């Protein structure tokens, strides 16, 4: 009996091996690349476009978001017969870097514009400026911020697809219960309201969190930008000793001391695990202020959240009310790696995807803000919950761009470690920032 079992195991192992073998036997066969959900469409195309050149496009979205990209791809393929785009979902940034620096590079990639900056500084990207010039491509269809976000040393290295900005969501009911009718316009007001609303349970755990300690990314950026703090300057040099950063961190620490660091960490830890799920703290009415993006209203709708929320600009300070409304500015960008094979096809697809026609598919499908100015007034786009407010914020053009740094990833890792130390109370903000300045002085 055991012998039979072992024989079966060995045979099935061999069979499985052979199925994997057929995949391995064609190392250079591009056609074997998997296309999620768009297979039928592209097969229909290939019936008439047997001579179409293949252009490979890698994006890092999965699941439903990936399907949106595939839809855009099949529309592009149907609209012309010279190129055939094949999409691939690769969600690991590691894989992207490794592939881009080998001969297996994709022709087109979608990454955030901060990644575009970093890749360009590391010599991984093809400049799109010559292509744009040859085509007399009109970049004024994009908002100034979005093109600036993808221009390095005066040349365009990517075209913007989506736009990101962060706003402050607030729970109207919690605010009213605490006796306030309007959302805060300054950080000081926000602190007051946050302290009033924060509820501590009998065992010391936080039940409702007022201060926007979560998500971590916005605590690192918007919460500091509102104080005028900047982690880098216009020359892309690191500026950890900026007084605005110190001011923000001191208020942050003050809040932690008032309500207990460990308890707050517990709340934030839970928020981290259940974020963007039905249990999300804000969706369940347990957070007063939440600095987050344009996807939040759509998510809340999908999860059937009953929170009565409002959207407003990130507060400024009493001393500098003009800081109000600053937030990071980011785009999803389409770029062409240096080692790409079919660069002309790559440019053609990039142009189309980031035009009004292509961008609208992706913006609507994935609930992201547009970069194309004409889409600002598109009725379908404005109909998305929350978009009207976000687009108004975009029009202010107060976004903070990412720096053109080679070592950006490394810098952010250091910043996060510094913030960890400050939040945990291991170091005072001043000491931590001084240490960071020392650590990061050689970064470019």
């Amino acid at each position, binding site marked *: 009996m055991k012998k039979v079992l072992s024989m079966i195991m060995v045979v099935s*192992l061999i069979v499985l*091996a052979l199925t994997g073998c057929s995949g391995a036997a064609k*190392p250079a066969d591009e056609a074997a690349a*998997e296309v999620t959900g768009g297979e039928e469409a592209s097969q229909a195309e290939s019936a008439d476009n047997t001579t179409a050149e293949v252009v490979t496009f890698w994006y890092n979205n999965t699941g439903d978001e990936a399907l949106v990209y595939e839809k855009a791809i099949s529309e592009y393929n149907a609209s012309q017969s010279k190129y055939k785009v094949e999409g691939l979902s690769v969600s690991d940034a*590691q894989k992207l870097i490794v*592939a881009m620096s*080998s*001969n297996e590079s994709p022709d087109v990639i979608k990454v955030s514009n901060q990644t575009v900056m970093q890749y360009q500084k590391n010599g991984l990207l093809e400049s799109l400026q010559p292509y744009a010039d040859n085509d007399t491509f009109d970049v004024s269809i994009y908002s100034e911020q979005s093109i600036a976000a993808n221009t390095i040393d005066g040349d365009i290295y990517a075209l913007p697809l989506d736009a990101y900005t962060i706003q402050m969501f607030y729970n109207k009911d919690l605010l009213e219960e605490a006796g306030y009718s309007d959302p805060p316009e300054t950080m000081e007001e926000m602190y007051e309201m946050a302290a009033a609303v924060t509820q501590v349970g009998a065992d010391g755990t936080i039940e409702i969190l007022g201060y926007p300690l979560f998500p971590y990314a916005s605590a690192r950026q918007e919460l500091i930008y509102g104080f005028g703090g900047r982690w880098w300057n216009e020359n892309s040099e690191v500026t950890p000793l900026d007084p605005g950063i110190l001011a923000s961190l001191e208020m942050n620490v003050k809040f932690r001391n008032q309500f207990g660091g460990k308890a707050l960490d517990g709340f934030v830890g839970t928020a981290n695990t259940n974020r963007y799920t039905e249990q999300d703290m804000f969706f369940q009415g347990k957070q007063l202020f939440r600095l987050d993006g344009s996807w939040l209203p759509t998510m809340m709708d999908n999860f059937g959240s009953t929170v009565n929320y409002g959207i407003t600009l990130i507060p400024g300070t009493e001393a500098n009310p003009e800081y109000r409304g600053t937030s990071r500015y980011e785009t999803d960008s389409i770029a062409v790696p240096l080692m790409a094979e079919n660069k002309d096809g790559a440019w053609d697809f990039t142009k189309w995807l980031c035009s009004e026609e292509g961008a609208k598919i992706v913006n609507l499908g994935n609930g992201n803000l547009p970069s194309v100015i004409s889409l600002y007034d598109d009725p379908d786009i404005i109909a998305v919950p929350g978009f009207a407010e976000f687009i108004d914020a975009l029009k202010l053009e107060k976004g903070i761009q990412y720096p053109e740094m080679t070592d950006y990833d490394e810098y952010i890792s250091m910043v996060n470690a510094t913030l960890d130390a400050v939040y945990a109370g291991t170091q005072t903000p001043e000491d931590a920032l001084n240490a960071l300045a020392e650590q990061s002085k050689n970064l470019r």
Partner: protein
Amino acid sequence: MNKYLSVQTKKIIGKILFYGLVFVLTIIFISPFLVMVLTSFKTNNDAFTIPVKLLPREWVAENYPAALAAIPYFKYMGNTAFITFVSICGQLLVTPMVAYSLAKIKWKGADIISGLVMATMMVPITVTMVPMYKIYSMLGLTNTYVPLILPAFFGKAFYIVIARQFFAGIPNSLLEAAKIDGASEFQRFYKIALPLCKSVMTTIGIYAFLDAWSDYLYPLIFITKPDRYTLSLGLQQYMSEYSVDWARLMAAAVVFVLPVIICFAVFQKNFVEGIATSGLKA
């Protein structure tokens, strides 16, 4: 009378303590498996209830088909099986040869090579990874299985050490007798030494299987396109997605782990004996 009783009670207390310890430890060691399986049958909301309950409120099976759909599990398993199978073949082909040379052939280089073999065990994989990456990249072999399989055909230090010890234990008289009969070195190896080493080869086969099946770093570096991913990569990719559905993730983990458990169940005796004796004559 009293003394006798207290010895008895001592024994009983001893036994209770012992069994208690065994029980607690066993529970501790099994609990991750329990957690994995039980969570996989919960809905994600159920998984996020506080206070956490062990058993699902409602047993759902939907995570399994969803997990299998989200990652092309069988394709990854096929890839991994292919790599594993070829690697095992390579190791089993090369290891006995090298071990025999070091243990049974009296030549000058034997000691030096043995020393070098042991020395290579100290070389961290991170040292060789960048140059290997550069080479394979230049040869256009990234995203193929060549970087993963090729080293198997040149022997791995750990296996050679084990095999060498085994061969050293084969009595020389057997080989001497064959030599007198006029057998060549190769014949002595093939007809006498090799058949004798089935047990140690099984051990090495098992180690090679475990190593290749769970290999992570090399696939991470060299395989770029999802259709070539191995199981470990596929699962990790699933984990680094934007928001994690833990219940579904646990289902994926269960499916991932099941073949290894089944394999173990079938070959249990070989696993235990092989691994246990591999460390004896160090």
